[in-house]
């Protein structure tokens, strides 16, 4: 509890420090990290807690983002309307995709969620009136609060609040009746059914909640850069979210968040700074940033098979 508090104090103080140092770029980067932290946490609910290896989470993330972007284009930029709409659209997408996909198991589930997500991707690519392949710029960040969200520090605090709410929600859920049931289903699905739980319904509910939270993250990412593009829905995005979860800690409360922050920090570090000793060791390594990130990820996963959260707590997975 003390560590959690300390963590949020640091997160809350961060923009003030950056303001003092006149370095607002990092506030924007931190908002981006927190948005991805919400997205990865949402995937961790399905993947880690529910044991459903969804390889199509970008569909819900992207659907949320596009809902906000399309509504804004049509003149609706009030966040009290647009954001709940994003959550609902993502939840409905998760309900439809989950209802079909959850009838399969294992590799088939992975492939079918991937296939559905790619279908959603191509739907948005083909929406020419909403930018098609080029993506869709938003007129600005959502309105509806007394404060202007165009200010990066205000925006950061709003994102931080929603991140905290997401994490608290997951914390409560993991300790509720429902949380116990999905943990049991992950542990032994057949027996869970045999003691009287309608397993399919619980998995679907978990999948929909997970998709809804990803939709919220999508609504935020659309606002972050005031721009959405189909790449938000691409399978690579699903893969990135999955890497974040695995890196941070599958089935741990902080896993998604730690993984998201670590991965984005790593990418930023490798592609935006030239590290002299690394340059001498591997000339032009920045041209192969993806490879460099991959090597570091591999090292972390090998060193901490339970993810960063497992390394930090030293306890068993949830």
């Amino acid at each position, binding site marked *: 509890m003390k560590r959690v508090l300390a963590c949020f104090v640091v997160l809350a103080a961060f923009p003030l420090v950056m303001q003092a140092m006149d370095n607002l770029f990092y506030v924007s980067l931190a908002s981006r990290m927190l948005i991805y932290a919400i997205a990865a946490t949402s995937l961790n609910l399905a993947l880690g807690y529910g044991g459903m290896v969804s390889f199509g989470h970008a569909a819900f993330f992207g659907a949320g983002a596009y809902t906000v972007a399309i509504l804004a284009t049509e003149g609706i930029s009030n966040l009290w309307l647009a954001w709940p709409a994003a959550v609902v659209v993502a939840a409905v997408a998760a309900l439809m995709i989950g209802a079909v996909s959850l009838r399969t198991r294992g590799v088939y589930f992975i492939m079918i969620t991937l296939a559905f997500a790619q279908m959603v991707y191509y739907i948005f690519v083909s929406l020419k009136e909403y930018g098609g392949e080029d993506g869709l710029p938003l007129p600005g960040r959502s309105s509806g609060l007394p404060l202007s969200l165009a200010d990066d520090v205000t925006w950061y605090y709003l994102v931080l609040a929603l991140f905290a709410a997401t994490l608290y929600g997951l914390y*409560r*859920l993991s*300790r*509720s*009746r*429902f*949380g*116990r*049931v999905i943990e*049991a289903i992950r*542990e*032994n699905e*057949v*027996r*869970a*059914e*045999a*003691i*009287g*739980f*309608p*397993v399919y319904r*619980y998995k679907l*509910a978990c999948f929909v*909640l997970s998709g809804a939270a990803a939709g919220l993250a999508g609504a935020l990412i659309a606002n972050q850069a005031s721009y959405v593009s189909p790449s938000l829905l691409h399978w690579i995005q699903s893969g990135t979210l999955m890497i974040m979860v695995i890196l941070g800690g599958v089935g741990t409360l902080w896993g998604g968040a730690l993984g998201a922050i670590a991965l984005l920090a790593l990418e930023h570090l490798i592609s935006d700074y030239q590290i002299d000793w690394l340059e001498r060791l591997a000339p032009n390594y920045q041209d192969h940033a993806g490879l460099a990130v991959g090597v570091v990820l591999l090292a972390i996963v090998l060193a901490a098979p339970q993810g960063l959260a497992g390394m930090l707590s030293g306890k068993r997975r949830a």
Partner: protein
Amino acid sequence: MLELRNVSKHFGGVVATDDVTLEVALGEVHALIGPNGAGKTTLIAQISGMLSVDAGRVIFEGEDITRLPAHARVRAGLARSYQVTSIFRRFSVLENLALAVQARSGSSFSFWRPLAAETALVDEARALARDIDLHEKQDVAAGMLAHGEQRALEVGLALATRPRLLLLDEPMAGMGPQESARMIGLIERLRSRVTVLLVEHDMDAVFRLASRISVLVNGRLIASGAPQAIRRDPEVRRAYLGEDLAA
């Protein structure tokens, strides 16, 4: 209490259960015996709803449950245990039992309220742990228990759903004589509370516990009756019992 009418199951060309008609009466311990591969486990799976019924009907307490999904049959009062231990290995004994109690008591679509606040679940789980003689190990992870203890928990999970009919699929599988004796004792204690359909290979246990015995060979029911009648039945002896019961 339970009635099977002409129940069959085919896997491709293989006949697992073939036109089985069987009745389990309220309050009895009904043993189902037969050689390996006779279709006993398939029949249990069909009664509990894990496997579909290709032909025939399953009637429980007068209701046709042939098409009812497995979880709904548990709620109707029909629970099973597994031949191959199927428990929640990372949960403690108490958590295993509390989970099964939870399945029975109210909706679990509750996302906010802490489970820990529901002391009733844990209280009942404690009582169950005592019933199956695991109260001294109640906080041990199920995966760490000895084989015989895991088997007891296996039965305890089914019991926690408060069934009126308990399907026990080889509860003594892989047990030594001492562990078997404890399991027999447990089933003896249960018989006043619940009707039991018992699949078992251990003939000593079967003849000690059963009030009626049915014999399944190659998916077909070849005999059903009182233990003494089954013991004498020439067809049963030829097909299954062999000479080990002659003595």
